[in-house]
């Protein structure tokens, strides 16, 4: 079978060997957890507990603060110490519920179901109650995404299992170690869309995963495993939809406009847990990788524990890192200290010894055209960056700057080491803020 792909893109080294062969291990939080009220796009959740309250694992401690928002549950049992602000992985201040862990892990009773016995409304209800959000990074609340205005028109359920960022292997481990849970999660979502067929898109550097899932899906007509060319950003939503269905999406469209729903691997596992087991989303699997760690690998962690705790508990550093990245090296955020708590959207931490970005000085554009040929959105990044640097918003719009998906491919290849993506995304932010002000 031909492996599918999109036009443009880059081939960074994948560095997956560092963490790839490490089985998922659970790491429990320390004495204190800091559970952020905002772990998703949309309004922050509203706290339901006060200082001094006793809570259990899985207890609802903050409820969705609006239509696009998500419930938050405790990941430990113990006593609420109060509400405290902390830095998030994206560099903003967020309010967090601080809980003293009694290390007993007493949990609320989880109420399970059989797939055959749940109806559409109940599926959505259970996903909403469990606070499931897109676990790939953006954190869009799943119950909103799975209730599009046109459910009858959805014919493709696309499972984003490309995992195209270098270093990250969490989805790979999940698909190998929890393949049944993963497939059951897909079947749950398929129940919501009568016409839909699920396509699991996996890059061809994970052939063992592809083979395993293909074997398990032999008898399932409505789940197909699609090998994709290993290329960044194969897991970008628009690129993935295009590779698998041939349909094209621009910045003003949502996947459901072309009959698609896209979700990533861990979201399906969270959905299975929520709907079938009744367990809310307070844990997740992430990859700890990079060249500085004693024990890189894939860990089951609890929301609210800090980066520092995970690194301490896994043996710490063997080299002093110069940069810590939350997420992948292509699109993740660098964080300046490790006391930042994990959220439902923390997919990985990459600790790099030498920071290639801060080491390279940028010089003038030599018009080599590399940025143009790799841009998956078919833009002219050098021109966009120039317009952005000159504050020329009209020029930026004329060159379709808002279509940039901020994948960073242009910055990656630029021989002049210009900070193309950075300039473009700053200009995008300004324009979007200005447009919002107008409305």
């Amino acid at each position, binding site marked *: 079978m031909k492996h599918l792909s999109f036009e443009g893109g880059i081939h960074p080294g994948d560095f997956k060997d560092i963490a790839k062969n490490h089985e998922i291990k659970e790491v429990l939080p320390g004495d204190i957890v800091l559970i952020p009220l905002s772990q998703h796009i949309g309004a922050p959740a509203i706290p339901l507990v006060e200082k001094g309250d006793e809570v259990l694992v899985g207890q609802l401690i903050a409820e969705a603060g609006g239509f696009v928002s998500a419930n938050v549950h405790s990941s430990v049992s113990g006593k609420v110490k109060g509400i405290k602000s902390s830095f998030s992985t994206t560099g903003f201040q967020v309010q967090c519920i601080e809980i003293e862990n009694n290390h007993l892990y007493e949990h609320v009773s989880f109420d399970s179901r059989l797939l055959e016995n749940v109806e559409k409304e109940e599926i959505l209800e259970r996903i909403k109650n469990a606070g499931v959000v897109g676990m790939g990074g953006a954190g869009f609340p799943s119950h909103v995404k799975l209730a599009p205005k046109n459910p009858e028109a959805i014919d493709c359920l696309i499972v984003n299992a490309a995992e195209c960022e270098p270093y990250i292997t969490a989805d790979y481990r999940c698909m190998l170690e929890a393949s049944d849970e993963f497939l059951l999660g897909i079947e749950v979502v398929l129940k919501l869309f009568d016409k839909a067929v699920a396509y699991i898109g996996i890059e061809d550097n994970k052939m063992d995963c592809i083979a395993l899932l293909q074997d398990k899906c032999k008898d399932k007509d409505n789940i197909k495993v699609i090998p994709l060319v290993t290329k960044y950003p194969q897991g970008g939503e628009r690129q993935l939809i295009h590779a698998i269905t041939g349909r094209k999406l621009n910045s003003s469209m949502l996947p459901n*406009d072309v009959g698609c729903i896209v979700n990533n691997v861990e979201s399906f596992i969270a959905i299975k847990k929520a709907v079938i087991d009744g367990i809310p989303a307070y844990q997740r699997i992430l990859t700890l990788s990079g060249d500085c760690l004693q024990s890189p690998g894939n860990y089951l962690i609890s929301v609210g524990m800090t980066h520092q705790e995970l690194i301490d508990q896994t043996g710490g550093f063997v080299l002093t890192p110069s940069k810590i990245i939350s997420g992948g090296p292509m699109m993740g955020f660098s964080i300046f200290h*490790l006391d930042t708590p994990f959220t439902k959207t923390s997919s990985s931490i990459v600790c790099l010894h030498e920071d290639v970005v801060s080491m390279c000085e940028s*010089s003038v554009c030599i018009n080599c055209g590399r940025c143009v040929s790799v841009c998956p959105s*078919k833009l*002219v990044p050098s021109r966009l960056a120039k317009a952005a640097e000159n504050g020329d918003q009209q020029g930026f719009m004329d060159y379709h700057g808002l279509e940039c998906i901020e994948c960073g*491919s242009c910055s990656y*290849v630029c021989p002049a*080491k210009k*900070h193309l993506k950075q300039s473009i995304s700053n200009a995008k932010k300004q324009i979007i803020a200005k447009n919002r002000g107008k409305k």
Partner: protein
Amino acid sequence: MEHQYHISSSPHIRDTLTTNKIMQYVILALLPTTLFGVVYFGLDAVILLVLTIGSTVFFEYFYEKILHLPITIKDGSAFLTGLLLAINLPVSAPWWIGILGGAFAIVVVKMLFGGLGQNFMNPALGARCFLVISFTSYMTDFSYDAFSGATPLAELKTDGILSSFDLMDLFVGTIPGTIGETSVIAILLGAAFLVYKKVIRLTIPVSILVSFSAFILLFGSSSLDIHYLLCQLCSGGIMLGAWFMATDYVTSPISDQGRIIFGIIIGLLIGIFRIFGASSEGVSYAIIFANLLVPLIDKISIPKPFGKGGPKNG
């Protein structure tokens, strides 16, 4: 709060290719044809090379020094311009031609337009044309050692066939011409290296050579004569021009679509100049003329953004 780790915007990893490395690769790729020129034309070629390269590097440094600009000679582009200019000179050119040409290339064509990345015309070619117009007799004198006579191109033009050379001479490069343009094999060797290193893409050279060939087959002296076509392709500056001069990033279009249009224009212009023009050679003029069209080509060949014009709302 203490800042413990580096903060910067993604992507946090970068490709290892730099502007410097690109310049080094191009210089390396020009080595075979330069060496061939040195061996074939002798000491005079070495002197011209040294003077011309010295001149471009010196004038870039000097210009930046007196205007208090950052010194950029380390990026390698001035060296490369000097090398390209030198291999575009006939070996019989007097020593001051190299120095004057180098100064013109750097000061007039490159620096006055803002330096690397800003010039709209290839500096080496700009200087070459300036020299050809100002010092025509020096620049078109291809006699060396005991050899004096017409170049293969001139023969092709007047007689329609080659009488003093065979095709093998053209391939190897044992013919009169500028220092670095005679050996097709040496040029192709360097070009293959650049393609392998992904410094250049095939778009520009292939569209030049294909459109030129089509033109020659249609309008050349005797139509559909493959031998004649090969002689045309292997003589004059077309190979050096197509692989090393037209592919200059700064003065060519930014997208592949644009580069194909650019290449076709150059190929056709070379054809017109060679077949209908008064002089036998026109590669430099063809490229410079196309350089001037780049803003326009860029405008009409900008790629369409992904998803624009795709299905709206289902």
